[in-house]
């Protein structure tokens, strides 16, 4: 596409319409009007070469269903999606560049802000990568607590997604029910970590502080509460005929496609891609718990939905197995004040709520990493969106995007 080589500022200079708009309101002549419309079309990415029936709309950066500042340039024919070009970067903060100036302990708080809905899992990835490099043995207690908190965050994240998925499909009530239950998990976490969203609870070698005295009791109460409500989720959405019609058989992704596009997490597992890092490359205390990898063969929006709901149940299973067996001991390993990773490349993959999160560190032996890279699950999932939504209606685009559960700050980093 030719216009992509044109920078926006160049385009504005060329036609100068912005100055006109900003200047005093003059009588609009017909020519100015057509110029204006033409300009709109150029900005919205319309190619003069394409057929008359096809047109572009911009979904986002402010759009209710993009959940943040994602912009999709959607090419439509009637209501049928022809192709999608994602535009990202509106909240790019350069976290990878910032890490090159920060010590490993300081990096933790940045990772909170990647996928903010699974913040402790991001913390966990960095901690494990650093611990790998330093070859420290961390106490069993830390492993257990980290696993439990990660699963709690996963439940919270999936509950938010559940509500939002309902909202995207027009069932606003589901949104409130999802948030009601999420609040309970967040309360448990807040009591323990002191924060509701951005926890910064892990530190290389252990935890910031020991678990709260009520931690186990609260969790058991919460799980008892939540188990009763899973039926309600099914009644309200999963079994609803309209919901089924809107999701079943739409946006089908085969296993091969999922692997080729690197679609991981529940979205990938709904396509029968066994990509659960917790199972494939166990870390923390996941090898101590007996759980199954949720796999579906459908690969459509509904199975991605189902996979997430089942994951909530599976997470509760994991927590239940571990919560009573948290071993006594120190909440942190003996760590040096200044952490220096030996020279080399290290990486750690963890299962974040939306897929495989990877932390890749190249160290030159300094107290700061030479290069740090976060493998964002959402960026890979976004890459598959164009493929999934072709020839579906614009309403399906919303449903499919919702079933992929994108979090934009994680894409932008």
């Amino acid at each position: 596409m030719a216009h992509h080589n044109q920078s926006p500022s160049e385009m504005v200079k060329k036609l100068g319409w912005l100055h006109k708009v900003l200047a005093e309101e003059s009588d609009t002549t017909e020519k100015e009007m057509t110029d204006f419309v033409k300009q709109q079309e150029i900005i919205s990415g319309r190619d003069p070469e394409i057929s008359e029936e096809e047109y572009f709309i911009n979904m986002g950066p402010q759009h209710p269903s993009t959940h943040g500042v994602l912009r999709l340039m959607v090419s439509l024919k009637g209501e049928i999606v022809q192709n999608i070009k994602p535009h990202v970067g509106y909240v790019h903060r350069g976290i990878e560049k910032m890490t090159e100036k920060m010590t490993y302990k300081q990096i933790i708080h940045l990772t909170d802000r990647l996928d903010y809905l699974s913040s402790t899992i991001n913390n966990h990835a960095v901690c494990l990568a650093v611990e790998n490099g330093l070859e420290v043995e961390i106490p069993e207690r830390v492993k257990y607590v980290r696993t439990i908190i990660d699963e709690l965050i996963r439940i919270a994240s999936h509950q938010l997604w559940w509500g939002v998925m309902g909202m995207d499909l027009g069932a606003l009530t589901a949104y409130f029910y999802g948030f009601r239950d999420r609040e309970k998990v967040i309360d448990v976490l807040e009591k323990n970590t002191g924060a509701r969203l951005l926890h910064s609870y892990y530190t290389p070698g252990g935890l910031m502080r020991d678990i709260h005295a009520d931690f186990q009791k609260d969790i058991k109460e919460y799980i008892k509460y939540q188990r009763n409500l899973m039926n309600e989720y099914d009644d309200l959405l999963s079994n609803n005929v309209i919901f089924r019609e809107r999701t079943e058989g739409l946006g089908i992704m085969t296993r091969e496609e999922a692997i080729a596009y690197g679609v991981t997490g529940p979205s990938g597992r709904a396509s029968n891609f066994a990509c659960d890092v917790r199972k494939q490359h166990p870390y923390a205390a996941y090898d101590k718990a007996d759980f199954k990898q949720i796999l579906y063969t459908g690969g459509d929006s509904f199975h991605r939905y189902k996979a997430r709901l089942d994951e909530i149940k599976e997470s509760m299973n994991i927590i239940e197995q571990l919560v009573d067996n948290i071993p006594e001991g120190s909440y942190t390993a003996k760590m040096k004040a200044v952490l220096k990773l030996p020279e080399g490349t290290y990486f750690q993959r963890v299962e974040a709520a939306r897929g495989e999160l990877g932390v890749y560190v190249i160290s030159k032996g300094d107290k700061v990493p030479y290069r740090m890279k976060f493998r964002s699950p959402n960026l890979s999932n976004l890459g598959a969106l164009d493929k999934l939504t072709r020839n579906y209606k614009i309403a399906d685009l919303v449903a499919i995007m919702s079933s992929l559960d994108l979090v934009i700050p994680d894409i932008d980093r």
Partner: protein
Amino acid sequence: MNEKYIPRYDMTGVIQSIHEYFLSVMPAGLAYVTELVLIGILFLLFYAVVGLILVLAERKVAAFFQLRLGPYRVGPWGVFQTIADFIKLLLKEILEIKAADKFLFNLAPFIVIIASFMAIAAIPFGYSLHAIDFDMGLFYVLAVTSVGVLGVLLAGWSSNNKYSLIGAMRSGAQIVSYELSIGLSLMTIVVMIGSLQLSTIVQSQADGWWIFKGHIPAVIAFVIFLIASTAETNRGPFDLAEAESELTAGFHTEYSGIKFAFFFLAEYMNMFIAASIAATVFLGGWMPLHIGNLEWFNNIMDYIPAFVWYIGKTAFVIWILMWFKWTFPRLRIDQLLTLEWKYLLPINLINLVLAAFIVLMGWHF
């Protein structure tokens, strides 16, 4: 049919005396004009009040379904919330879209609101308490309410916004198909009554509402009418024209201030009209609830004024429509049409035949 049922609170005398008073102080022509203006003002007031109440009710009902309290700050229990909202909308800047078709853009909200306004004229609020009693009242209401979609189409087209256009086109397809279901489901009852006059329809239910004495066809017709009227009024789960998560606000994306308020108000008034039709045709209009020969019960029911019965029934139907909206996900446009053409229409036709058969055999009361 039975002889006319006259409720305990008969408004005919009052209206008659007002009419006579006007005739006594001015010439007949002027008296009629004055009465028309008075009724117009009365309806405008009614319109505004119902609009405000319904918006508040929607917010409260939605909140109750969603584990919330709803508006709570403006006045006790937030009862003045919508008035505050309305003032805000009045004060808001009316945005002009440069690339819009200005005339149609400004015209659209009026078409929408006038369509709903015209429909109220024929609605019987009580015994002889209606502005005009056409002998084809039901047909008139159906015809007038479907003019509203013209406003929606114009709004979407003239905004020069792609989201609006998609919304408007959806709305067009939706209303054209759901008109059928509304008409046919009402026809099921009309077959039993034998009249399109709304006052006759109400009178025919003196000995029992059609939903009870119309057997199964009436119940099926009622359910279909509820579904179709939800679609007709562009409300969830059929709110595709404004589908918030897909089209941001659909056909009224570019409207602001009072023009947006017109669309907003018209949506609620359309809902009110749809609910009134349902109440009039299926639930006995202003007729009190009577149970067979239970004299004492019937007497108590008769004490409640007809107008209250009417509003109560309408409110009940509106509540059901709200319940729909706050429970279900939205349909997709092709599913919406599938629902109409593959499910509602065939069921409706069979239902109509069934009703006709019942009438033929004289099985209805």
